């Protein structure tokens, strides 16, 4: 187990380096003039332009720019954004917010999704099963920004149950509750359906029949054997989804004005802000890798046949 983890962590190093280079090269390859938008409808003055280009090394070839970036990175300096704010400070402020949001979302999607999946899986064909199947279908088919705006308008503005926007870098759980529900809503549907399908399949499996025949109660047969096996794909999905929620919360963060990482990356890409994009995305890559490692380790717990020795 220990060697497995170490090996996986070592494997992350080239992946992270490769990712930073790819992202850096992609931002570098964006067409156009990074200064043109900063001075309005008129071209920037040569003086402003020169100062800006020199500050961000924009006149250097890609390998030199990347080399400088990595050297600074090794010293712990993530650079500054195009509007002169240290990237590291922004990440420090924003990552906890998005992490909190994504974590709440994952808890909601896992909690509600697995429960709904189990209930419908056991009593398939019943009223509850059909109800959940239909409602998840509806959730999946509605774009998240529609859910977000509707929830904000009715639950926030009209009823006043939730705060309309967050606009704070230390939001409370309550402030993030509505955005987290919105963000997790589509995933809830996927988790529920995935859970249900797998459980239904496993309930028909030989080992469950054997367990019941051996004299185990139905509850134990399902809870101990069928459920554990059915959880493997669900855990894979949730692990993947956690990473996706971190980076993909752009829309939700925009609607509720949450100062998180998604909106930051979005803004940085539009402003061709290389340092911000690379810094933030690298961080997301690392989170993604760690989340996947955790998922792989969880497999071992769920199914002893999967061994990491």
């Amino acid at each position, binding site marked *: 187990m220990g060697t497995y983890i170490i090996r996986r962590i070592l494997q992350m190093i080239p992946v992270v380096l490769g990712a930073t280079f790819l992202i850096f090269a992609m931002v570098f390859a964006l067409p156009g*003039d990074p*200064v043109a938008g900063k001075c309005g409808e008129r071209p920037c003055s040569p003086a*402003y332009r020169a100062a800006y280009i020199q500050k961000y090394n924009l006149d250097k070839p890609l390998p030199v720019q990347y080399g400088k970036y990595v050297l600074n990175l090794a010293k712990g300096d993530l650079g500054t954004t195009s509007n*002169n704010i240290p990237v590291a400070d922004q990440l420090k402020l924003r990552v906890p917010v998005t992490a909190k949001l994504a974590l709440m979302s994952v808890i909601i999607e896992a909690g509600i999704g697995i429960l709904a999946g189990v209930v419908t899986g056991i009593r398939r064909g019943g009223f509850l099963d059909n109800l959940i199947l239909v409602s998840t279908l509806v959730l999946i088919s509605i774009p998240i920004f529609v859910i977000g705006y509707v929830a904000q308008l009715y639950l926030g503005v009209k009823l006043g149950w939730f705060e309309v926007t967050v606009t704070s870098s230390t939001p409370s759980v309550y402030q993030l509750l509505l955005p987290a529900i919105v963000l997790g809503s589509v995933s809830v549907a996927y988790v529920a359906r995935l859970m249900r399908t797998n459980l239904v399949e496993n309930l028909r499996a030989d080992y469950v029949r054997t367990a019941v025949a051996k004299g185990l109660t139905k509850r134990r047969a399902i809870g101990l054997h069928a459920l554990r096996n059915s959880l493997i794909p669900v855990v894979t999905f949730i692990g993947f989804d956690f990473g996706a929620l971190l980076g993909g919360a752009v829309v939700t963060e925009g609607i509720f004005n949450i100062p998180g990482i998604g909106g*930051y990356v979005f803004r940085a890409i539009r*402003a061709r802000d290389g340092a911000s994009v690379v810094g933030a995305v690298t961080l997301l890559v690392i989170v993604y890798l760690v989340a996947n490692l955790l998922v792989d380790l969880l497999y071992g717990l769920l199914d002893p046949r999967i061994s990491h020795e």
Partner: protein
Amino acid sequence: MRGTARTVAVAAMSAFALLAAGCGSGDSGGDQSSAAGGKTGGEITVRGCNPENPLIPSNTTETCGGNVIDAIFSKLVHYDAETAKPTNDLAESIDTTDNQNFTVKLKTGRKFHDGTDIKAKNFVDAWNYAAYGPNGQSSGYFMEPIEGFGDTQCTGEGDDPCAGAGVPKAKTLTGLKVVDDTTFTIKTTEKVSNLPVRLGYSAFSPLPDAFFTDPKAFGDKPIGSGPYKLDAWNKEQSIVLSKFADYKGDFGGKVDKITFKIYQQSDAAYNDVIANNLDITDEIPTSALIDEKYKQDLPDRNAEKETGVIQTVTFAPTKVDPNYADPKIRHAISMAIDRDTIVKQIFNGTRQPATGWVSPVVDGYKADQCGEWCKYDPTKAKALLQEAGGFKGSKITLSYNADAAHKDWTEATCNSIKQALGVECVATGVVDFATFRTEIGERKMKGMFRTGWQMDYPSIENFLAPIFKTGASSNDGDYSNPAFDKLLSEAAAEQDAAAANAKYQEAEALLAVDMPAIPMWYGKTTMGWSDKVTGVKITAFGTIDFTSVSVK
């Protein structure tokens, strides 16, 4: 150019688009709330956005930082919120006898937020800093009229014109002289009749000595000269201002504290205003503009006003695209555009169809300068086109930057042209604002393209000289007319403001003959506010007038 940069904000990030904010019913400024009532004190929150640069007046060229800079810096003159007319603020007097040598006398007793007196040298040093090339200040060009500006600029070539031999000859402007603590003189290279009007722009703010010892720290926490001081700038979240206790000017505010809450989307800010979580938003989202929904959401709590913004469509220089060289073709295209319908259908009435090249909010505006050429008349348009021998190219193109909300109106414009003239017209999106501007700047873009302008100072001159004078910095169509240039120089030499304006109006009339750009519409700003505040007024610049707003 802050003005233009506001348009940038629009263009570059649609979410923060100020232009997109304009909206509402036909009458301008009609339902501004009355200034009467409302007590002094209290605090308000207003919608803000992320400043693009450190908060230094000479390096802030866009609306996000500009709104803050405006509130914390007093300038020599102050523009009236409603008429945009300049009155002396820090200046006791600005005198000249020849429009070239100006003597500025300062009021005594005015202080910076760090307690130091505002002296003549604070202006001279600040302006020298703005002008000096290697400092790379984005609004350094505002100092251009002052004598000696050329010598403060870098002369090198390539990406770093300030390196090596390119270092400027002079560090200071020869045209600025400190006489004593409260007096300094300005000498301009050429005659400039409206210099006093320009001095109200934030690039001309004084800077305290503390700035020169540590410009970087200053950019994070500027020490201003205005009625409000900056308490905290929480990057990408909020900017907090509070009343400056030692403010002695005439343009102080009523509220004690102003917090700019930074929003990514105008929808979020708007919903917060409805729920009374935010006091004022200076941008109404499109979703609320449809059928004027915002007037039901915020009854008696909204206002709109025309601003010093104009949208135009410019023709590529003749050497780039000869198909549009004949003014008759240009007139035909202009007459083929149904501005009224487009404004109504696409913008929900949030623009004012243009009748000239100058915004109605400025001093010297004359209505209907474009005359019949800006009125929709498809029959006449088609006749004109035939007279000119038809359109030579295969199709008319109208380019726009696709990263902001320009697709709808450019397509509608093209449809209007197509239907009236029977010539194929295509609205062509360019990936983003930066690329768009680069193509225009390098004179690679053919056909027609959208251009916008927001004034820097409320003068008719600002809508003519920077855009249409031969070789001017924003002359994207390379327009050059000796008669036009001559009228501008004559106007600049006029002693009398009215006489100068008359010359400028004459010059504007020439634009109708040559049609270097088609006037489309003027911008409007629409604001909405919560039921906690009163006295919200919109300035001619489309910003919130902090002198009148108060808590109920």
